[in-house]
């Protein structure tokens, strides 16, 4: 056969000499077995080596930003659930906090702690899914089953608080939908005990595993300078050795009152990203435990001027039979809600008008609650931040999740922009996999933890 290699026979003259004259184009996705999420990679291959890759996204573009402009401020909250659907609580709170920044108010102490607790629970479930799914793609199916089992425990907590497992819509501008349920702290401790057991098992299964290390160590690495130039944040940046975390750099909510470490890596490869995520889950559990200990009492919501709303005012008086007070309130509901008396209502209610929707018991049970509800829901009323713009960043599970909102003074956001933490690593994916083998695309893609809802919005 002479000097001709086997590869030359299949791929043609010159391909075995490294001249690269016979490049092969392979299409991966948008519906690919080894990849969770809908993207398309057009790979240019020299043998099995990746020469070049073109990444196409947008298969899950759902017009988040356009939909937000169409409705009042609170209507955007269900859409934010579905941005990063693995950790929806962080998106919720991030959006609500950005509107609060526009309004110039701050949530109450208790609400800030609740936001911290729920965000961290969400972050753990995100990292669990990420590690589980990327391990599954490398053949470690057991890990996936264990991780999803642990995620179920956390989702049960989330369901206790919010009433839903995944798309929770728990945040409100100025607060949260409801307070934590009774006995929540005990349930959290129990769930964390189980989660820690799972993490210990997974740590034993993966961290020193020869096959896993062979697939992860040194693969998909990106230098520190390039990671920064690509604006990559979150676990990927920390794996490259930069300890940037919005929770520490620009603390929001109650993050400056809890202790936690920022785990960092050194090489910026897939294995370091895995280690960083694993360590972050432990830190998140620490934060939740501290926050539960320090959780102050008091109100969870604030009104439009930033004054705290007393929880006692939430109690439905009508249902308790205390109707004599209600009769003294000089408001009657117009039979025609958009009718002639509308300006009068505004005059009556302006002092009472709040940012937070009243609880449903109040809406259905008392006249003030009903009025309050209408004033927040009716077209042209509702939350009206002054003209201006604000950018608010929170640490999402994949990095800096920023919301940029422009207000024109009406009850609808003029423009909502979400800075997706997934997009920069996806833009850098061709750089990460350049020169690697085709099979390395899968663990690299898994370590990015691309969430299509957030990437494409």
């Amino acid at each position, binding site marked *: 056969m002479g000097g001709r290699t086997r590869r030359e026979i299949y791929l043609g003259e010159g391909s075995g000499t490294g001249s690269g004259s016979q490049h092969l184009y392979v299409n991966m996705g948008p*519906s690919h077995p080894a990849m969770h999420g*809908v993207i398309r990679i057009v790979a240019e291959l020299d043998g099995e080596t990746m020469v070049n890759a073109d990444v196409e996204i947008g298969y899950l573009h*759902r017009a988040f930003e356009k*939909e937000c402009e169409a409705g009042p401020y609170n209507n955007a909250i269900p*859409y934010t659930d579905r941005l990063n*659907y693995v950790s929806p609580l962080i998106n919720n709170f991030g959006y609500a906090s950005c509107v609060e920044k526009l309004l110039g108010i701050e949530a109450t102490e208790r609400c800030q702690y609740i936001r911290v607790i729920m965000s961290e629970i969400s972050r753990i479930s995100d990292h669990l899914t990420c590690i589980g799914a990327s391990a599954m793609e490398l053949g470690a199916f057991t890990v996936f089953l264990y991780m999803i089992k642990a*995620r*179920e425990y956390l989702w049960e907590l989330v369901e206790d608080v919010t009433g839903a497992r995944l*798309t929770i819509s728990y945040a409100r501008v100025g607060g949260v939908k409801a307070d934590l349920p009774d006995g929540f702290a005990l349930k959290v401790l129990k769930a964390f005990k189980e989660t820690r057991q799972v993490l210990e098992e997974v740590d034993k299964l993966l961290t020193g595993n020869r096959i896993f290390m062979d697939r992860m160590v040194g693969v998909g690495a990106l230098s520190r300078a390039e990671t920064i130039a690509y604006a990559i944040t979150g676990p990927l940046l920390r794996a490259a050795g930069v300890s940037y975390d919005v929770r520490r750099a620009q603390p929001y909510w109650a993050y400056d009152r809890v202790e936690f470490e920022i785990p960092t890596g050194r090489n910026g490869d897939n294995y370091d990203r895995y280690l960083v995520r694993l360590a972050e889950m432990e830190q998140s559990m620490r934060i939740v435990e501290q926050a539960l200990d320090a959780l102050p009492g008091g109100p969870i919501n604030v009104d439009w001027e930033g004054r705290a709303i007393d929880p006692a005012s939430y109690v439905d008086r009508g249902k308790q039979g205390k109707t004599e007070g209600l009769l003294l309130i000089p408001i009657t509901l117009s039979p025609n809600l958009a009718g002639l008396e509308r300006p009068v209502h505004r005059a009556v209610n302006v002092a009472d008008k709040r940012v937070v929707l009243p609880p449903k018991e109040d809406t259905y049970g008392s006249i003030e609650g009903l009025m309050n509800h209408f004033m927040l829901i009716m077209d042209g009323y509702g939350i009206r931040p002054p003209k201006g713009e604000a950018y608010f960043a929170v640490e999402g599970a994949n990095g800096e999740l920023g919301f940029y909102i422009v207000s024109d003074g009406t009850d609808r956001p003029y423009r909502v922009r979400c800075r997706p933490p997934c997009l920069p690593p996806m833009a850098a994916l061709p750089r990460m996999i350049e020169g690697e083998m085709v099979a390395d695309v899968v663990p690299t893609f898994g370590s990015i933890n691309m969430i299509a*809802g957030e990437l494409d919005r």
Partner: protein
Amino acid sequence: MGLGGFFTGKLDEAIGWARKYSIFQYPFVTACCGMEYMATACSHYDVDRFGAGLPRFSPRQSDVLFVVGTISHKMAPVLKRVYDQMCEPKWVVAFGVCTCTGGFYDNYATVMGIDTIIPVDVYIPGCPPRPESVIDGLMKLQEKIAAGAQRY
């Protein structure tokens, strides 16, 4: 199967019974519903009890197309192509409200229900549907498969 009504009926019943417990599914996972799909497939809810535990990632080897998550107009041709590649007999499950009707994404980017593109056998509404309702939908599909075998 032309040996007489009685025998044909029994054979079809047997085929239907066998088919409904060997569902090879093709998960066409795009969005949020995929998370609940994962939860349903894993040990906590264990879809394997219904003989549907093994996903096949090639459309040519699968019987049931699970369309999980929002389908955008950019994705629609891909979905149609995957459906066309599947061999008869085939069934389609619309998982989640976005695939059923488009859900609250009534905008320029999304398809208002996948039944405008491909035929659908079972609709599982919910945003996303809870694992219990997914399992309910799967059992409905099994009934349909068992009954439908007599068509062939």
